[in-house]
């Protein structure tokens, strides 16, 4: 993950649709060489952001840099380095999978050399001669991924790519994305599904109401600076910590202590005659982080 040379930089981005403000001064970065999860509830501005990055919609204010090119001015120079799936796979259902990839390659101005390799990569080599109309949703998503990869792009923008896939399909798709990111390409995946992002992303950008809520490496976000403690006497431990001015809460058989310094927690408890059986960093879920930050209780 490279944050010093980000793949995407966004400053003060504003997009209004008549009375609705889809993006309200958004600032964020997307590191290169990693999978970034763009997370937000429905209507948070994720698709509008994707469309803005690709020059499919005109923004009202702000600045977008994609692969060091200002958008939309530098769009022509940068689109061949970007692969994208917007909202749904942009496939022609009356054509076969293979012909769809031929069309994609032609539209990009690339040759057809990689088509067989990509069909194999997404596991569709046996179905390439079938019409897309006969494909399952998962097959269409995988074909769209192959089409997005046809130019060997530096940046892959995927809008809700796991939406509607069955668990096996999701797992296969995630595995492909991980392979792509491990090869050094930058992947941005939007989703309203917290589990998708938690299972996939290295870096997370959380949007709500068209604004940035938070962004950062997923690990940092989940560790959250808390300490997890297991003792024989939770009530006494809670009281001791409270007396020391440290907030803590019961979480199953353990305590989650709002203190990053585990040694301080141990010292406070030891002074109260409580000796923990386990102490370590508490890992929260993305769900709890997200709900805490967006205040959304319907996710």
């Amino acid at each position, binding site marked *: 993950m490279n944050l010093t040379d980000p793949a995407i930089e966004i400053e003060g981005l504003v997009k209004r649709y008549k009375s609705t403000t889809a993006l309200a001064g958004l600032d964020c970065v997307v590191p290169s060489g990693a999978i970034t999860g763009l997370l937000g509830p429905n209507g948070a501005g994720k698709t509008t952001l994707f*469309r803005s990055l*690709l*020059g*499919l*919609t*005109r923004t009202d204010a702000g600045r977008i840099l994609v692969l060091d090119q200002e958008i*939309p001015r530098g*769009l*022509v120079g940068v*689109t*061949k380095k*970007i692969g*994208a*799936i*917007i*909202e*749904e*796979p*942009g*496939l*022609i*259902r*009356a*054509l*076969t999978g293979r*012909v769809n990839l*031929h*069309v*994609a*390659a*032609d*539209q*990009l*101005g*690339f040759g057809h050399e990689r088509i067989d390799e990509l069909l194999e990569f997404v596991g569709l080599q046996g179905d390439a001669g079938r019409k897309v109309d006969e494909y399952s949703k998962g097959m269409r998503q995988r074909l769209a991924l192959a*089409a997005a990869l046809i130019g060997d792009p530096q940046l892959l923008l995927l809008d809700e790519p796991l939406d509607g896939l069955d668990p096996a399909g999701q797992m296969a798709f995630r595995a492909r994305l991980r392979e792509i990111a491990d090869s050094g390409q930058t992947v941005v995946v939007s989703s309203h599904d917290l589990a998708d992002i938690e299972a996939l992303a290295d870096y997370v950008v959380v949007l709500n109401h068209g604004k940035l809520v938070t962004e950062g490496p997923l690990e940092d976000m989940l560790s959250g600076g808390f300490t997890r403690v297991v003792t024989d006497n939770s009530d006494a431990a809670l009281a001791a910590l409270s007396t020391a001015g440290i907030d803590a809460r019961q979480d199953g058989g353990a305590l989650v202590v709002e203190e990053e310094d585990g040694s301080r927690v141990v010292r406070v408890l030891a002074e109260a005659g409580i000796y923990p059986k386990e102490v370590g960093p508490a890992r929260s879920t993305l769900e709890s982080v997200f709900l805490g930050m967006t205040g959304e209780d319907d996710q």
Partner: protein
Amino acid sequence: MSLLHAEYLKLSRRRLYYMMVIILAALVGLLAFFLLIFAQIAPELAEGVPVLEKPMAYIFGAQQVAGQTWFPLILAVVMLGSEFGSTVWATALTRDPRRVNQISARFVVLALASLLAIGAGIAGWSIVTAIAVPGEGGPGVDEWLGLVWKVGLIELAWTAIGLGAVALLRSVGPAIGAALALYFIDPILGLWGPWETVSLSAATTSLFQIDFAGGFGVTFMSNLSLPHAVAVILGWTAVGLFLTWWGLHRRDA
């Protein structure tokens, strides 16, 4: 070139074009039967229908087939319109964001495909004429070449109008309705002098420079000079292309 090839693939690998060609062939076949053969084999039933003779039957047929302007119109509307129902159009722009290039590729391929189909229809008509129509002679090479560019011009105009209609309305049904409204209303408006000078139907008829009034008892519009007719058709083509660009630009922005 590669955008043109993409459009060629999109058109040639789906059934739509071939179905439309079959319908066109059936229509031209019916026209040829009634206008070239029926009056000969059943003159008592075909009273009032003139017996066409060579060489006029060739050019008349070319005009009849070229007049099937529903072909480029519907082909353009359905081909581009089907891209709006999904994200095919947006996805194409993510691969080449230059709308002018995208529109040009579709325009060229669809107009050429229409020219090919109409040309095949004219060839079919001409074969029937050569075999079954009385009279002597036929158009020379220069006249056949003249037909190619005249038919090509007509295909350009109606393809552009079809693209413009669907780009503005973003839906296949209403776009076909709007374009067919022009198809039917324009000849009627053409009876009014000021409109005749810009009428696509009048210009199309004028391209062939045939006076049919005597034969059918109907006054066909053929009063425009050839340069005037060409200018009118090119003007409609430009209007159609501008509407296509503007419709797509306005919506996408």
